[in-house]
């Protein structure tokens, strides 16, 4: 989340000793500094165009003056500033907490009570900003940091230059599309009502985990913001009514910040962090602890002239969404400031090829969709930072709606674009099954890292690949974990058909292996879809006195099972279906979830000690400010593999274009060493698990203390058990 100072960086600015770089953007660099009294500060130094512009300096001085008047415990205070200096600078208090964006990404949506508290305090913060005569203009999840006693609003309006904007079809807009008010999105000046709109978006995001106008290109977001109704998912009751009012298209119809504070005033937090979910509170505390460890002096590193993206061009910043972080924990900073891969320089004379990312819109697939996009962007940025590359890459993301028609439409768009050389995805089963034929017919190679049905091969036997194991295989490995950890006891297995066909795929294998291979007793129960028969099945199995439990169903039903088993004081081994890894289960189940296992191919690389895993984790943290999320490692591996093989299909020297179909031919024979596994493909282009290596490539995670913790691979667990016996 921060990096060492460079030789070109100053060691001191006014009363602040600079310790590390928190981030860099078009307006300058944000440093972590320490005052002589020892307090940490975020020091933003304006460089480049802004520094030489007299109008800018005048406005900077005025806004600093106004900001000093902002009086709210929920707004990060200005410590000092100098608009007259050769490089104007501004210092604010350093808040080590994660942003709402990071907290939600890592631990899912916040409970409604926490959102109410957040809403009340942020409304107070905005009211203070508005009272001081400022408009924030960029309220978004990345600009709200979390501390144990409440949120902190950062980056309030100062030093955001006119070019700190997003480029859309209708022109430039200041702020971040997706959180912009309609009037702001249409180029009108932001007002305090625009901040209230953005606050509504933040509260919706905190409640649901998705922005209310979705994700996508700035143009699409602006269009939806202006024309569509917000998607508020599970926001309920009074909170929903309030958020809807904040999101009124007409600025005059929105409540004021003061109104909102009044409405939510009864929800005051204590200072212990009790208002936050345990997992988030722990994250906040961990960040605070990390910040104590910042050294006073660190060696500087020499600027590497071979890395061109350090100071991204103006155009790149425009496309980045104009979200320069002003101050604060370097949390969001890394996300926005680490260079952008969307627009490789067009003037280089190098050809530009496109990597497609085929995702699925909607809550159910939000995490894997976002993870796939992020993985692709990181891999492509790494390619574009290679000095001797002969071509540039860019990422194009298109989302289907999870159905056959839109999945095929996305595939047709990609296949029709002759610059698209390979596609990561689709991310969901039905789109994979249906879009494969379109990709296959066009000879465009695509790799899905998050699906486990293998129907694609029948319609697309040449260019469709899958880098995740079949659901059935993962089900079989549950039994393997039981063997290697010496937990072979009579088991109850529930297949809840509401979870879709993957429940049967897994369940059939669990039951078969338990009975035939483990030679132990197993009691199966199949629950009909769209009934409420799950709890009865659980009771039946408890009555049958099973000693191990496997519930294969949707999230809510599995959480309910965890609660029922906790109530029954069931302490035997318990497994959930593998697709729930990375889900909200730990938070929703609370302590009842402790001890549940999930067996999956998805690795948590942040706890691995290999160099590859460490390098990847560091690169991810640097770019996105958090550890790699579930499923992103496999998506990243898949992209790197695609790109490595694609490179070998690019004709050397000549100006000829690579032949699309060559990639699939290469990929079918590949043996690619990823971060935590080797990829090779079987006869159906499926992830090949016919060798013994998979035991070291299949991971057991245990829910403990509100999150998934990786216990190790099956191979690790096996060796650990062997060494003990």
């Amino acid at each position, binding site marked *: 989340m921060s990096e060492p100072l460079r030789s070109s960086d100053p060691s001191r600015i006014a009363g602040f000793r600079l310790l590390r770089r928190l981030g860099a953007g078009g307006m300058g660099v944000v440093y972590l500094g320490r005052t002589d009294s020892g307090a940490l500060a975020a020091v933003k130094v304006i460089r480049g165009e802004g520094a030489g512009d007299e109008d800018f300096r005048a406005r900077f001085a005025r806004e600093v003056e106004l900001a000093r008047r902002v009086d709210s415990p929920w707004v990060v205070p200005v410590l000092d500033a100098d608009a007259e200096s050769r490089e104007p600078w501004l210092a604010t208090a350093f808040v080590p907490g994660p942003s709402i964006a990071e907290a939600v990404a890592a631990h899912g949506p916040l409970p409604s009570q926490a959102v109410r508290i957040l809403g009340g305090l942020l409304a107070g913060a905005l009211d203070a900003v508005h009272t001081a005569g400022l408009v924030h203009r960029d309220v978004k999840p990345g600009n709200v940091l979390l501390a144990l006693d409440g949120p902190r609003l950062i980056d309030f309006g100062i030093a955001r230059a006119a070019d700190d904007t997003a480029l859309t079809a209708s022109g430039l807009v200041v702020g971040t599309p997706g959180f912009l008010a309609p009037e702001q999105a249409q180029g009108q000046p932001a007002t305090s009502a625009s901040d209230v709109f953005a606050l509504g978006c933040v509260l919706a995001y905190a409640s649901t985990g998705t922005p209310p106008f979705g994700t996508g290109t700035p143009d699409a977001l602006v269009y939806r913001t202006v024309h569509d109704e917000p998607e508020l998912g599970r926001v309920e009751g009074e909170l929903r009514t309030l958020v809807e009012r904040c999101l009124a298209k007409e600025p005059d119809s929105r409540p004021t910040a003061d109104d909102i504070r009044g409405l939510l005033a009864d929800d005051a937090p204590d200072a212990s962090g009790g208002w936050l979910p345990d997992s988030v509170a722990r994250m906040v505390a961990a960040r605070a602890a990390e910040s104590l460890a910042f050294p006073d002096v660190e060696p500087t590193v020499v600027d590497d002239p071979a890395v061109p993206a350090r100071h991204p061009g103006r155009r790149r910043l425009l496309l980045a969404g104009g979200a320069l972080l002003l101050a604060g924990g370097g949390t969001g900073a890394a996300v926005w400031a680490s260079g952008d891969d969307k627009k490789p320089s067009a003037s280089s004379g190098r050809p530009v090829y496109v990597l497609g990312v085929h995702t699925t819109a909607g809550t159910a697939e939000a995490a894997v969709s976002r993870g796939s996009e992020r993985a692709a962007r990181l891999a492509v940025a790494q390619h574009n930072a290679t000095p001797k590359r002969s071509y540039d890459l860019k990422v194009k993301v298109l989302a289907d709606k999870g159905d056959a028609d839109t999945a095929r439409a996305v595939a047709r768009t990609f296949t029709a674009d002759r610059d698209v050389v390979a596609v990561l995805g689709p991310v969901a089963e039905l789109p994979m099954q249906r879009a494969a034929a379109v990709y296959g017919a066009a000879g465009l190679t695509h790799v899905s890292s998050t699906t486990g049905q293998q129907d694609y091969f029948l319609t697309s036997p040449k260019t469709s690949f899958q880098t995740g194991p079949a659901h059935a295989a993962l089900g079989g*490995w549950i039994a393997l974990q039981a063997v290697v950890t010496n937990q072979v006891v009579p088991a109850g297995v529930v297949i809840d*058909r509401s979870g879709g066909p993957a429940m049967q795929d897994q369940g059939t294998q669990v039951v078969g292996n338990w*009975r035939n291979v483990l030679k132990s007793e197993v009691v199966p129960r199949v629950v*009909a879809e769209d009934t409420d028969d799950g709890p009865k099945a659980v009771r039946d199995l408890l009555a049958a006195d099973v000693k191990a439990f496997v519930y294969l169903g949707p999230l809510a039903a599995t959480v309910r099972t965890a609660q029922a088993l906790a109530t029954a004081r069931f302490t035997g081994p318990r497994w959930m279906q593998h697709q729930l890894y990375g889900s909200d289960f730990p938070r929703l189940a609370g302590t009842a979830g402790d001890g549940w296992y999930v067996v999956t191919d998805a690795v948590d690389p942040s706890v691995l000690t290999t160099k590859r895993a460490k390098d990847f984790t560091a690169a991810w943290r640097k770019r996105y400010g958090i550890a790699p999320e579930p499923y992103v490692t496999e998506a990243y591996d898949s992209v790197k593999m695609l790109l490595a093989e694609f490179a070998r299909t690019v004709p050397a020297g000549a100006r000829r274009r690579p032949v699309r179909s060559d990639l699939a031919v290469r990929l079918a024979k590949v043996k690619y060493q990823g971060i935590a596994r080797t990829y090779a493909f079987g006869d159906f282009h499926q992830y090949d698990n016919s060798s*013994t290596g998979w035991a070291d490539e299949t991971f057991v995670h245990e829910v403990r203390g509100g999150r998934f913790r990786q216990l190790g691979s099956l191979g690790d667990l096996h060796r650990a058990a062997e060494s003990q016996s």
Partner: protein
Amino acid sequence: MAGWRPVLAATTGALLLAGCSGGASDDEPKAEGTPKKSSGASPSASPANEPYTLAEDRAPKTRAEAVAFVRELTVRPDYFGTGYRKRDPFESDPAEWAVLGEDCLWRREALPGTVLASLTRAYELPAKGGKGPVYLSLTVTVHQDVVSARRDMAGSLEEALRCPGQQLNATDQVLGLFSRADAFTDGRTVISDDDLTETGTWVAGGGKAHPFDWYKFRMGPVTVAATALHGSGRTADEDSTVTTDMGKGMTFVAASIDGRGKAGDASATAEPTEKKGAGQ
């Protein structure tokens, strides 16, 4: 660590299975134990956008209506291929159905409250030219509502998991059963609301094992099931044709039920013709 290798073998086998189930193409990769869900189950070349179904409000409501409904359905022997004929006894008692006990033995029992009628018809392809006979049954069951029918499908899936070997009667056994069900909404090659396929082998009186198939469709509150006990003397391809033809015959029945719902004659009243089926 004795379990290590066998688990590996089992999962690899499942992978092959998963790789081939759900398709309807001629170049379908062949893998042992693959449910032959071939084009026979779906006479139309492209997957339809609507499943064969029967709306709950067009389905029989009373036992009398349900009995009339199942009896009026025409199920000709040649639905299942040339040479099939009715067995004697041909029809079962519609007030009974077959139930798999805790002991994995099938018995005929009175219908539970959730089932309005269930009629099983019996067919055979007589032995000919060195090929043993095929015994085929077709059962149409009217449940009181869609939820009951869904529970029945879940129960059928559970049966193969609970009893991978089942005793059909005093002499006949089915073994190594593997079943799976795909809902139409899962997007696979499915023609009704929910298609279940089950495969295994059957053994008569300690003799040689031959293929056994069980297909079951759900259309709203109605289920249609067929079983085929293959005789000896067929090649794998010929056995596959028997299975495919059974699927075709079921499709005719499904289409006719679907058509009755659409024509609105499902609730046409008819006198219950209480013909005594001898059962099985």
